[in-house]
C-alpha cells in the first residue's frame, strides 16, 4: 500500500506538471488581451503588456512562470490592481471550500442513506418516491434550482437569506442547490450497487450468521457498494470544491468559481493560470485520495499493489 501510495503520489506530481504546462499554453491560446478593456487606448494596452512581460517570447514567459511557481509565487493578477493570485485564492477558497465541502458531505450522506433506503425498502411507495426524487433532483440544472430556491425561500417566503454567507443560515440554500444533483446521482448509484449486492450469497450468509440487518448492510454490502459511489464522489467533490460559477453568482458567494469565470472573461492570464493550477491541485489531490480509498476498499487491488 505504501509503495502504491508513493507511486500514485509521484505520478500525481507528474500530472500536475503536465497540467501547468497545458494550462499555460491553453490560456495563451485564447483570443483577446487582458488589457484591451472598453476604455483603454492602444498605447495603454501596449505599454501595460510590455510592463507585464507579455511581449516576451512565450517560452521565456513559461520558464519564468515555472520558476516562480516553484517558489510558490503564482504571480499578480493583471486585472486586480495590487492583488496577487495567491491572495485571490486565499480569500476565495475558504467560502468555496466550505460550501463545496458541506455540499459534498450532504450529498454523500443523504445520497447514501436514500440509496440504501431505496434499495432495501420493501415498500413500493418509498422506492417509487425516491426514484421520482432522484429524477427531479437530476432533472433541474443547479442554476435553475438556485434561482427557484432564491425566489421561493428568499423573495417569496423571506425565510432564508440569499445574499452572501454572512450568517450560518446563508449556507443553507447554496449548499442545498449544489448538493441536490450529486445526491441524486449518489442515491441512484448506491441503490443500483446495493441491488447487485443484495443478490450475493454472502448477504444470505450474513443473515444466517445472525448479524443484524443494519450491520450486514453497513459492514458488508456497503463495503462493496461504496466503490462506484466513491468513484463518483471523488470527481464530484473536486468539482464542487472548485466552485460553481452559477450558484456563487446567484447567492453572491465570494468564491473561486466566480473568480475563475471572471478571470476568463477578463483574460487575466495569471489569475486563470493560477486558479487552474490551484484547482488542478485540488482535483488531482481529491482523485488521489479517491484512488487510495478505492484501493484500500478493494482487497484485490490492495494486495496487488503491494
Amino acid at each position, binding site marked *: 500500500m505504501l509503495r502504491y501510495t508513493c507511486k500514485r503520489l509521484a505520478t500525481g506530481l507528474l500530472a500536475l506538471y503536465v497540467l501547468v504546462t497545458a494550462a499555460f499554453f491553453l490560456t495563451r491560446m485564447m483570443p483577446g488581451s487582458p488589457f484591451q478593456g*472598453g476604455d*483603454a487606448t492602444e498605447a495603454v494596452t501596449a505599454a501595460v503588456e510590455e*510592463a507585464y512581460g507579455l511581449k516576451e517570447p512565450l517560452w521565456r514567459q513559461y520558464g519564468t512562470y515555472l520558476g516562480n511557481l516553484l517558489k510558490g509565487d503564482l504571480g499578480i493578477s493583471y486585472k486586480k*490592481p*495590487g492583488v496577487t493570485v495567491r*491572495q485571490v485564492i486565499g480569500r476565495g477558497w475558504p467560502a468555496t471550500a466550505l460550501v463545496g465541502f458541506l455540499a459534498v458531505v450532504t450529498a454523500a450522506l443523504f445520497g447514501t442513506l436514500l440509496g440504501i433506503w431505496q434499495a432495501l425498502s420493501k415498500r413500493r411507495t418509498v422506492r417509487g418516491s425516491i426514484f421520482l426524487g432522484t429524477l427531479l433532483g437530476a432533472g433541474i440544472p443547479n442554476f435553475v434550482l438556485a434561482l427557484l430556491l*432564491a425566489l421561493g425561500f428568499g423573495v417569496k417566503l423571506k425565510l432564508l437569506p440569499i445574499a452572501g454567507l454572512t450568517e450560518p443560515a446563508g449556507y443553507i440554500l447554496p449548499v442545498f442547490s449544489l448538493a441536490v444533483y450529486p445526491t441524486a446521482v449518489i442515491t441512484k448509484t448506491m441503490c443500483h450497487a446495493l441491488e447487485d449486492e443484495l443478490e450475493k450469497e454472502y448477504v444470505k450468509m450474513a443473515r444466517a450468521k445472525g448479524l443484524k440487518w443494519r450491520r450486514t448492510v453497513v459492514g458488508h454490502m456497503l463495503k462493496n457498494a461504496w466503490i462506484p459511489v466513491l468513484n463518483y464522489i471523488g470527481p464530484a467533490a473536486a468539482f464542487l470544491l472548485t466552485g460553481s460559477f452559477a450558484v456563487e453568482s446567484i447567492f*453572491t458567494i*465570494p468564491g473561486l468559481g466566480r473568480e475563475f469565470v471572471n478571470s476568463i472573461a477578463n483574460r487575466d492570464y495569471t489569475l486563470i493560470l493560477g486558479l487552474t493550477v490551484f484547482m488542478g491541485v485540488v482535483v488531482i489531490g481529491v482523485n488521489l485520495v479517491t484512488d487510495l480509498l478505492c484501493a484500500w476498499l478493494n482487497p484485490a487491488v490492495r494486495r496487488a499493489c503491494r
Partner: protein
Amino acid sequence: AEKGQEKTAGEQEITVAVNSETGGLDPAGMIALTYLSYSAALDELVAFDEKGELVYRAAESYEVNETSDIWTFHLRKDAVWSDGTPVTAADFINTMARALKPESGNGYANYLFPIRNGEAIYNGEADVESLGVTAPDAYTLVFELEKPCVYFLDLLRLPVYTPSCVKYADKVGSGWDKEPQTSVANGPFYLEEYVPEQYFVLKKNEKYWNADAVKLSRITYRFFHDQQSMANAYETGEVDVATALPGAVMELYEGKEDLVVTDTIATRYIYPNLEVKPLDDVRVRRALNLAVDRKELCEMVGKDTEPTVNFVAKYMKDKGADTYFTEGAEPPFEENVAEAKRLLAEAGYPDGEGFPVLTYNYPSLEMDSDTAQVLKEQWKKNLNIDIELKAQELQVNYTERRAGNFELCRMNWTADFADPYTYLSMLLSYSTYNCSGVRDADYDAIVEQSDGETDREARARLMHEAEQLAVGEEFYIIPLYTMKSCNLIRPAVKGVGQIPATGALDYRGAYRAE
C-alpha cells in the same frame, strides 16, 4: 453585514448593492468601477449638481484666463483628510502623476492629455515634472492646458482629477487604497472596512468640512455579481438600494415608490464597417438606418431603453442651457421604410436581391442579444435582407471591434464627462474608438474647430453640424437607443442624488426618514 430591514430608521445606515468588485479605490488605479461607488468618499475640486449648477467641493473658488487654457483653483484651507492631514495641492498632483504612468492601467489617463505635456509624459517622451500642473502654494492649483478647453470643469469629476493623500499613496497597485488605515478620504465618508469581493463600509467623516450636511453615519456597499440576485436581495430586504438593475425590474415595480429611474448618458449604436463591400455605399448605410423601427425595438428590448436617432446621448445637457443638447437641432434623419427600400434598390439591391449576408457582432449580453434578434427580424421584414448574428464573448468582441474585424458591430458609449465632445471625438480619423474606417477630413475639421471654440453657442452649432454630417448625411453609425438606469431605493431612504453624467446615485445627502 447586517440585514437592512432589521435596522431602525434612526440608525442612519444604508446598505447599497453594487456591481461586483472591479478595480480598486485608488483614483489613479485601474478601471475603477468600484471607485465610482466609493466616490462619496472623495471630494473633487468642483462638481455639477443635478440641475447643472456648479458646486465647490475641495476648491472654494477658481479662475480661468480668457483663452480658457489656464485654470487656477483655490483649495479650502479648512479641508483635512480623515486622519487630520490638511488637503493640499500636492495631493491632487499626486493622483495625476501616478495615473500618467502607463503601468497604472488607468483608463482615464487620457483625460489628462489636455494638460500640457500630459500626453508626452504618458508616452514616455517627457518627464513627470514637466506636467502643466503647478502648485504655487499648498492651497493653489494651476492647470496649464495644451489648448483651450471649455469643458474642463466637466472633466474634474473624473477620478484622475481627485486627490490622493501624499502621505500614503506612493504607488499604484500597492494596495494602500483598500487598507482602512491608509485609505484616507477628504470627502464626507471614509473607508472603515474593506472585505474583498464581499463588501466595504464607508463611515461618516466627522472631520469633513461640511460634516453637518451629512446625515448618514454609515454606508455599506455589497458587491453583487448578478443583477437578478441584486433585485432579489432588495426584495428580501438584505439591501436598501440596488443599482443598475435589469429592465424587467421596471415592469415589475411599475408604479411603486421604490423604483428610481435615472438618466444615463449612454447611446447604443452599430458601427457599419466602411471597408466592407455594400457598407461603403452611403445609400446602403442610410437604408439600414431608415429601416429600423426603433420604437418597436425598444419595446421588445426593455423599458429601460429609449429610441434615438442621434449619436450624442439624449440626456446630455447643453452647456449653459437648461435643455438637452439633442433638442438643440432637428433630428438627423427620420425612419422611413419605403425610402429605405428605394435606397437599397438604387444601390443595386432591389428588394434585397443580391445583398450579401452581413454578420453582426455583438457581445453575448442579454440586451444586445435581444437587440440583435429584433434587428435581424426587422431588416428581413423591411428590406428583405439577411444578417447573420454572431454573439461573442465580451473580450472577444472588444478585440475584434478594435481590430476592425467585423461587418456590423454593436457599440455602446457611456459618457465619461458631460460634454458632447466625448461622443463626437470618437469618429475623428485618429480616435482609438474609430474602428469602422471613418476617414472624413471635413468632419475632423468641424470637430476640431468646435473643440477650440470658446463661444458656447458657436461651439454648439459646430457640434450639431458635425453630428448631422456624421449621422444624418454620411450615416457612419446606426444609432439605436439611449439607456436609463433602473434602481430600487427603499422609500424610507431619502435624499439620494444623481451624478449628472453617468446617472449614478450620489449618497452624500441621503438619509433615512423617521
